[in-house]
């Protein structure tokens, strides 16, 4: 599971979606892997506005990456190749292969196995 996807998801439990503590989901025992992917600057530029920057900073922090700038790069900063490359590496090349994502609101744990996260809920949470 790539970091960009982690930024796109929250707890699947309907009641949690409105609670601020359900996002971002928190990692437990995350096993990381770096997988090289073609650099696609237009993609990074296009998705940056959709990224929840506070959430991304929190995730990067939990995984022990160097801290991201306080505010989301915008305008001219999105033409800086190094900025785009750093984001590319974090969002698309960093993979969580095994571990758990935990909701800060209900505590439900979503298992990631072989890079695939399982968001199917047991019946008492549906």
């Amino acid at each position, binding site marked *: *599971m*790539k970091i*960009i*996807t982690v930024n*796109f*998801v*929250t*707890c*699947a*439990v*309907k009641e949690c*979606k409105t609670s601020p503590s359900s*996002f971002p989901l928190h990692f437990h025992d995350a096993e990381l892997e770096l997988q090289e*992917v*073609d650099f*696609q600057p*237009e*993609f990074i*530029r*296009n*998705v940056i506005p*959709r990224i*929840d920057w506070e959430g991304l900073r929190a995730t990067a922090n939990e995984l022990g990456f160097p801290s991201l700038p306080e505010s989301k790069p915008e305008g001219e900063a999105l033409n800086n190749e190094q900025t785009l490359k750093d984001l590319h590496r974090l969002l*698309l090349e960093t993979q969580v292969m095994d571990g758990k994502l935990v909701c800060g609101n209900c505590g439900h*744990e*979503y298992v990631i196995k*072989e*890079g*695939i*996260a*399982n*968001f*199917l*809920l*047991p*019946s*008492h949470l*549906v």
Partner: protein
Amino acid sequence: MEYLIRFAQVHETFRQPEIQALATLAGVDLEIVSYDDYSPYCIVKLQDEAAARAIITRSILAKDISELWGQGTNYEGLHAQVHQRTQHRWTYYREKSFAFAVDTFAGKRSQSKKSEIIKSFAYMGLEGPIRLRNPDEQFYVMEEYVSDPEASILGTPKVSDPRKIFMGRLIANSNRDIIVKHDLKKRRYISTTSMDAELSLVTANMALAAPGKVFYDPFVGTGSFLVAAAHFGALTLGSDIDPRSFRGKDSEREKGEVALMRNFKQYDLESKMMDLFSSDLTNTPLRNCQLLDGITCDPPYGVREGLRVLGTRDGVLKEPRIIDGVLAHTRPGYVPPKKPYGFEALQKDVLEFAARNLVPNGRLAMWMPTSNDEAIEFPVPMHPNLEVISVSVQYFQAWSRRLMTYRRLPEGELSDTTQGRDKTDARGICADELNSFRRKYFTRNGPKPENVELAQ
């Protein structure tokens, strides 16, 4: 300027929507001057050659596009128009290498007759070398022997003369060759419900897949739609309620990777795979905001694949169970309970999801089956935030399926949904009660239950 598109004579109702979508994608104005489902030739107006090239090089259902030099119902008329439109340009082509070909639709010409036709254009004064492969300029004469579609279905007597003739200079070939490369017969990982290559690619075009975009399929299966969107440069995200569908059996996997990735590797598209995860659309983990540029999907019909969502059949929530001292749902291999779900309800959920998660002007392209005996007025599912762009039909013997393309309207705009389907789900707990398509599909040959009662 007028251009002549030569279409493949397949999936007729998809052809206009596809080129219209590609014009939107390229940001060019397209005016369709003449089009007929029964003919491969279509005349359009475009601002220039670059616009023609931009549209057709991505098209799957067109074969090519030519600059229209003339048309007529006979050769006198055609030659007169070629003179009038292009006489001042002939000197430009005088020294170029060229090829000249005659293409006929629903008719035949002998080789000697074809060269006679080609020679009748001698007045253009082309003196360059004739080169059949990679000429500087390719000219076409296209003859169409069908002009009365209704009569041709009834079987008109064969006519010896074409009813319409076009002459043009080739501008660009389409992307149609990719169908062969993407053919399911050669694809590494498929299943019974994989969508064929041609229509998957058309679906991606309808939804405007392009580099830099995020495309999502909530019923990903073996990934037919994602492969197509990735071919056009989008990054793709897929999920399925049954992870086995994209994960594959152990025998179908390679080096511990999910089987679906083998398809992306086959076409060198690995960099276009964003992620796959297990989830149910009715309980999606995606944040409630505008994250996606396109959604392409073929929701399960309940015929080959059951239509299910998370939940219990009796609707009663089960308390967490404990097995060997641990919560059952945290044990490896736990399979959450699912219940049969209504077909109409699912489509409504897809539309609501699309309205929530698409960016403004983002597109949803969704397939849906219908039995052929349903009312002719086919009610399209609608949503106030989604504008219906096109509805295309693929016919089969006893049923058909439709591809519906929607655009997410920018905030402040609402679509008119009064013509839409306003049907709530049938009540019931078993698949047949919930899914009228499934019921019709399985009972179409046998007597219907009420008829049986009457017979007794």
